């Protein structure tokens, strides 16, 4: 144990692990060390409870990636209803849960071009629990209306939609998403942050309770699990992240990504 100083990354991973809950299968895309830590934490908790779940597929890893039917299997698997939780982000996210991974300004003459929609225009519709995760919480990223909809937060009633956003986790707070009302609700602010600060830095309207609670700190047991069991596993995939957050170097860190 590194003592009682809790790093922001640890707090966020714990918040996300709680959002994951008890499910069968969590998949995590590339370049997502905090969601990956959360998924592995959920798996370790499942082990401790004797549940033997969730399965965790870390798409960036060889060891924690069970797919053998090529790059399409993740999407087929989600279409089958076998992926319960996935993570998405956005260059822009708006108050109706729309996400933009393509560009700002006019599509034909963009001001900023992002990489692209990846699988979001599909997975956002069919994965029951999509957790939005964006560490930069600003009016630049959380906007009134996205310039391009890679995937909408909600759909018309007649559109097949078995999934969608359940929450948005940022460096400042946790929002839950109400699909019926098509709005975010401020559930808690992380220690050291305030509801007013959140409002100042958010480009969209959101609901909030009269008194906004503070995101609870992880329990000592959870912290121990994360630092002692999860961190060494994570180090195989995100060695620099683990070194920086947990101060752990993994002997196996060269397995997937020796560079």
């Amino acid at each position, binding site marked *: 144990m590194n003592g009682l100083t809790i790093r922001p990354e640890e707090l966020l991973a714990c918040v996300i692990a709680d959002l994951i809950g008890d499910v069968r299968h969590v998949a995590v895309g590339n*370049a997502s060390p905090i969601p990956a830590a959360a998924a592995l934490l959920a798996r370790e908790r499942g082990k401790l409870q004797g549940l033997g779940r969730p399965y965790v597929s870390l798409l960036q890893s060889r060891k924690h990636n069970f797919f053998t039917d090529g790059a399409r299997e993740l*999407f087929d698997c989600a279409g089958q209803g076998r992926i319960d939780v996935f993570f998405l982000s956005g260059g822009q996210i708006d108050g109706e849960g729309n996400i933009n991974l393509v560009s700002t300004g006019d599509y034909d003459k963009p001001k900023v071009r992002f990489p692209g*929609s990846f699988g979001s*225009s599909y997975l956002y*519709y069919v994965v029951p629990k999509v957790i939005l995760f964006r560490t930069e919480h600003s009016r630049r990223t959380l906007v009134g209306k996205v310039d391009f*909809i890679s995937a909408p937060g909600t759909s018309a009633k007649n559109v*097949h939609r078995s999934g969608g956003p359940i929450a948005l986790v940022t460096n400042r707070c946790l929002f839950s998403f109400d699909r019926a009302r098509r709005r975010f609700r401020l559930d808690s602010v992380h220690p050291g942050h305030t509801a007013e600060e959140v409002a100042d830095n958010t480009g969209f309207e959101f609901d909030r309770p009269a008194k906004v609670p503070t995101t609870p700190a992880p329990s000592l047991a959870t912290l121990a699990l994360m630092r002692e069991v999860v961190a060494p596993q994570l180090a195989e995939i995100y060695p620099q992240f683990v070194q920086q957050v947990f101060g752990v170097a993994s002997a196996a860190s060269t397995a997937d990504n020796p560079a």
Partner: protein
Amino acid sequence: MPLFANTVEEALAPIADGCLLVVPREVSGVPMEATRALVRRGVKRLHLVALPTSSLQADLLIGADCVATLETSAVSLGEFGPAPRFCDAVMRGIIRMMDATCPALHAALQAAEKGVPFMPLRGLIGSDVLKQRPDWKLADNPFGDDDPIVLLPALKPDVALIHAPMADRNGNVWIGRQRELATMAHAAEKTIVTVEKLHDGDLLADPVLAAGTLPGFYVESIALAPRGAWPLPLPDHYPADAAHLAEYARLAATADGFADYLKRYVHEKRAA
């Protein structure tokens, strides 16, 4: 029987200017040696399909002015940041962009693989991805009740270009778990393969190897290209060359830097 080419350049002959070329995602074993050979040859006006995403390969081809149209779900250098030549080209409007989403590209290739004119796909409705794709159609699911669904036309590439760990002397290619490479080869008119090495013996004769093998009758030409995915990784064989990718990201951030990169890492190879 595929042609066993003496050089990568010779194997690439079927890739003509204007070719509809499909290439695999950045972690599946990208034919980078072949890509550099295409840049050296100066191929033009490619309709490049990256299944379903790309990194260095698309950025390099775009920067070297080989691409007219790019159809993919994302281009990024991952931990090394945005793909600079891609972003620049899109912002300056000098390539035609066909934004997609990963499963749509897989499904459109599978339609060609199955010889059907289209494939349905869930999702997409209400997105601007769909709005920007007039070639995709919204239809009513005849098995549902007021149930709109998107239909994607079959995507039949002229050429699939892949890199794999090995091929045998009958032209069979071992691709392992990267089964999208098989779908690409099935869907494309012609398939060109570079491999790390030749395998002695028949890949199809061993049931364990056969399970990961693309049969040679889908293959047009094969060339040896040891470390042919460098500086990208080849799964289970070698990792990405992170130092090189960081250098690329740094140089390609400007047009001059990119020209310098091309000179040092693509064109000077020709003299070597």
